[in-house]
């Protein structure tokens, strides 16, 4: 009698484990990934990676995870179940950020030291194209229809528009000082670019590649120099954007219709990038200096917990486990 009960219990336990979604966080200084169980909000696994892991993204079917190991000059491909590195992709020098094309095959990688964007075919593991862009490229984005890729360059202060069919630049637009991150809205009509030193987010009309709005940030009792927008993510239905404001230790909530900042949420030290959970009710922020991840309840716009991870957490990505 005891055996069936034990089996049922074990099965129940396993299924609960399997249901717990995860947030994967790259730790720049520790050369590791911390895996956070969303249910228990604890680090359940720490996985070794190449040197200085920064950008992280899963394939569309979540069968592999791509990691920018910047100081190893490689994009590593890992099996998320075993945590084993399967192989490295040719990535060009010092890959910092990348984006996976909606075709689930081509990776667009920003090579910070070489001022180029490398396009890699993940199936044939070959470099398809290398496109000259501005100095110190970092932010990467691809439009939802896959026709446009964006690279932002930190020193040139530009967003470079790449035609993904011809792999050539077709436009360059100026943004404020040190652009860090770019993202298209889900309907593909707008491109948002954050400028770290400029302290702004520029919003472009994708059809005309012209700037249509600019957002400024201002937090009471915090010097404007500390307010440095970096990563950002859109909520369900693109109604709001949550913007990480670097060493100001706050995340801003921006209304995407009025472009007004509605709220500032206190998180850990030097907040860098963010990732939502499955239904976008919780947001996880990587806080580089304090070495933790703050969980924000999206509905109440309040920080509910900070979870200790490795040293200098940088990128974050969601992984469903069922």
């Amino acid at each position, binding site marked *: 009698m005891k055996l069936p009960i034990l089996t049922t219990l074990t099965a129940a336990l396993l299924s609960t484990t399997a249901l717990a979604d995860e947030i994967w966080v790259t730790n720049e200084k520790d050369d590791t990934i911390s895996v956070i169980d969303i249910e228990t909000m604890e680090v359940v696994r720490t996985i070794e990676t190449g040197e200085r892991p920064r950008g992280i993204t899963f394939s569309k079917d979540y069968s592999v995870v791509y990691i920018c190991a910047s100081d190893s000059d490689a994009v590593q491909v890992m099996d998320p179940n075993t945590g084993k590195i399967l192989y490295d992709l040719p990535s060009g020098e010092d890959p910092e950020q990348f984006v996976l094309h909606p075709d689930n095959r081509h990776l667009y990688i920003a090579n910070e030291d070489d001022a180029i964007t490398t396009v890699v075919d993940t199936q044939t593991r070959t470099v398809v194209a290398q496109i000259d862009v501005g100095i110190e490229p970092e932010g990467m984005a691809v439009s939802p229809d896959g026709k446009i890729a964006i690279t932002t360059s930190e020193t040139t202060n530009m967003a470079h528009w790449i035609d993904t069919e011809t792999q050539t630049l077709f436009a360059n637009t100026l943004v404020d000082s040190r652009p860090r991150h770019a993202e298209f809205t889900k309907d593909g009509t707008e491109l948002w670019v954050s400028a770290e030193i400029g302290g702004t987010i520029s919003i472009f009309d994708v059809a005309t590649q012209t700037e249509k709005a600019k957002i400024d940030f201002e*937090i009471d009792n915090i010097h404007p120099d500390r307010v440095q927008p970096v990563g950002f993510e859109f909520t369900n239905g693109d109604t709001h954007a949550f913007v990480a404001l670097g060493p100001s230790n706050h995340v801003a909530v921006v209304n995407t219709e009025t472009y007004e900042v509605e709220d500032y949420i206190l998180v850990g030290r030097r907040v860098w990038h963010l990732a939502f959970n499955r239904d976008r009710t919780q947001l996880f922020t990587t806080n580089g200096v304090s070495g933790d991840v703050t969980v924000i309840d999206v509905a109440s716009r309040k920080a509910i917990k900070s979870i200790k991870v490795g040293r200098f957490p940088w990128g974050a990505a969601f992984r469903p486990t069922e």
Partner: protein
Amino acid sequence: MRHALIAMRAIVLREALRFVHQRERFIAALVRPLVWLLVFAAGFRAALGLSISPPYQTYITYETYIVPGLCGMILLFNGMQSSLSLVYDREMGSMRLLLTAPLSRAWLLFSKLLGSTIISILQVYAFLLVAWLFDITLPGWGYVAVLPALLLGGLMLGALGLALSSFIKQLENFAGVMNFVIFPMFFLSSALYPLWKMAESSELLHDICAANPFTHTVELIRFALYVELNPMALLWTALATVVFMALAVWGYDPARGMMTRKG
């Protein structure tokens, strides 16, 4: 037993009546912590957040940090104010009348203590409501869970007031209590700064703060506001309540305590 309860009700009602008739006292009791919250905390400029220490799960602003300390401040000042009223009662002769009641002295003192503690708790909730209006919110259940902590803390500080009042001969001496009891108790506690911050400046200061029973009352309130129990703080506060209460009963005993010496 019935007599005892009637007496308790009468004493508590007297405290309540006294409080209702002194609206300025209520406003003063509310304004004091609010000045700290809105002026002192704003001036502290911890907009970048305080480091995480239990029971907090994430980074908090300084305004959020000092709320439990200010709840404790209300209990402390009220406990002392109530002891001041006892000195006044003694001078006016109403104390003699009260103590002639055919009930145990400890019971009468406890009733007095309970009355003043209930008044303090009402003031704390009024303060929490104003804090909430200023967007300093706590977990919903925290407002309920804090009630027993406030009751125990209030009793402890009230008992301290009672014990002190038995040693004070005249009303004028109350200024001494302010300088030598209330202020050191408040400033040498975790009400305004976390203990780890104290340790950074001086280990001795940290040790004094850690031994201060008021620190433990504040921590008991702090944890309760976040629906958590701090067993050490509970133990210390309970222990201090028993000691102060015993001192008060001893102090008010005409045969042995300070009352004999005063005549």
